[in-house]
């Protein structure tokens, strides 16, 4: 996709403490793409991006909100007594979502935008069954959200990154569905969701 080594050797060589390698690579790749995409991220351009709201920044913040939600959901699900297989899934998927959060927040900052604050979430999580049911809804919604936003993304690099993330959401969704004894792929074409529909769907989980 984006070859960071060639585009920016200095970036590729850096290891950032406290940030996973893959999240960092993705963030660097996004930043490089953004730089090439806008010719030069001079302060002027950054300001312009911030003022226009920059369509891509808005979409990235939308995605960030969803990733915060998913990451928080898996984190909270650790308090349940899940069977060992589901605990592994929740741990692994939760860490994937946390990496998405890191990459998206970093990219928004690199583009001169301001990452949205992490909302406070509240989930009706009582037991394994409610975990599975909710996980399926959230992951399927995540897939629809990215698929809906994809065609509106202007930067090819950010689109590629969003694609790379949505594929993971789809893999999560299928895995959770299997555990739910549901069809892993319920249709030949995944539905795309409009931003507002997604925000409405997740609203009940956001504590004001």
């Amino acid at each position: 996709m984006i070859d960071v080594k060639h585009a920016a050797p200095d970036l590729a060589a850096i290891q950032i403490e406290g940030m996973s390698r893959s999240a960092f690579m993705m963030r660097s790749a996004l930043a490089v793409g953004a730089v090439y995409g806008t010719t030069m991220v001079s302060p002027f351009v950054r300001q312009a991006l911030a003022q226009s709201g920059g369509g891509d920044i808005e979409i990235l913040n939308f995605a960030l909100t969803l990733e915060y939600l998913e990451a928080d959901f898996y984190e909270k699900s650790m308090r349940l007594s899940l069977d060992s297989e589901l605990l592994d899934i929740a741990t692994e998927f939760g860490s994937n979502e946390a990496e998405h959060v890191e990459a998206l927040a970093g990219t928004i900052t690199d583009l001169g935008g301001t990452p949205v604050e992490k909302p406070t979430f509240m989930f009706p999580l009582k037991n394994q069954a409610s975990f599975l049911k909710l996980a399926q809804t959230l992951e399927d919604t995540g897939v629809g959200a990215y698929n809906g936003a994809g065609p509106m993304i202007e930067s090819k690099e950010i689109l590629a990154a969003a694609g790379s993330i949505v594929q993971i959401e789809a893999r999560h969704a299928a895995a959770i569905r299997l555990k739910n004894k549901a069809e892993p792929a319920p249709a030949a074409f995944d539905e795309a969701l409009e931003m507002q529909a997604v925000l409405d769907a997740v609203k009940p989980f956001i504590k004001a």
Partner: protein
Amino acid sequence: MTESGEPQAGPALDELARDPASRKRFLKMMGGGVAATSAFGILLAACGGDDDGGTTGQAGGSTSTGSMSGDDTTTMEMEAAEGDLEILNYALTLEYLEADFYRKVAEAGLFKGAQLSLLSTFGEHEQQHVETLTGTIESLGGTPATAPETTFPLDDAKAVAELAATVENLGAAAYLGQAGRIQSPEILAAALSIHTVEARHASALNALVGAPYTPEGAFAAPATMEDVLAKVKPFIAA
């Protein structure tokens, strides 16, 4: 959430490639209430459309027809349409391979029960992808690639399941590799909606063979057209 729409999705998408009105509905469904909805129409017009001799669509260089008067915008759109057609035909070839693979797997009688049902469902999805891609290519004035003759090693259930997983993971990577190259927002929306289905298949099949759901971690890796074609070459007989 998607279950309710499932029964209608297939025929609706099949229709979309042929009927502009249903295409519009499809695009709406795809969340693609994107401003560029009309780009599809522009492309069709620039390519001669399917109503007035759509086969000129691939010509590109031709300036003899009125609809291709050679102004810059039209030329750019023509090039964009050609690039998209190439990608669509590439995707079609992969979908042909997958659909044929699942057909042969079912015929080989290696699986039964839940596993057979899973594989058959995935095969049906691939067939729907074939039909939709074919229709889309035709509606853009292109010529759909012909189905390749395939050959797969189908002796042992475990090896076949592993091959299925390999093929689906490759398919997902192939779509991901093209996402940034597709010009038309509508075609991109369709490709994205297929991409995540391939990813779902890959994840389920990985589970079947004991491989990780997300073998590459939090970010899936794309594959280039060149790499993918090289990897599927052993399965193409003629």
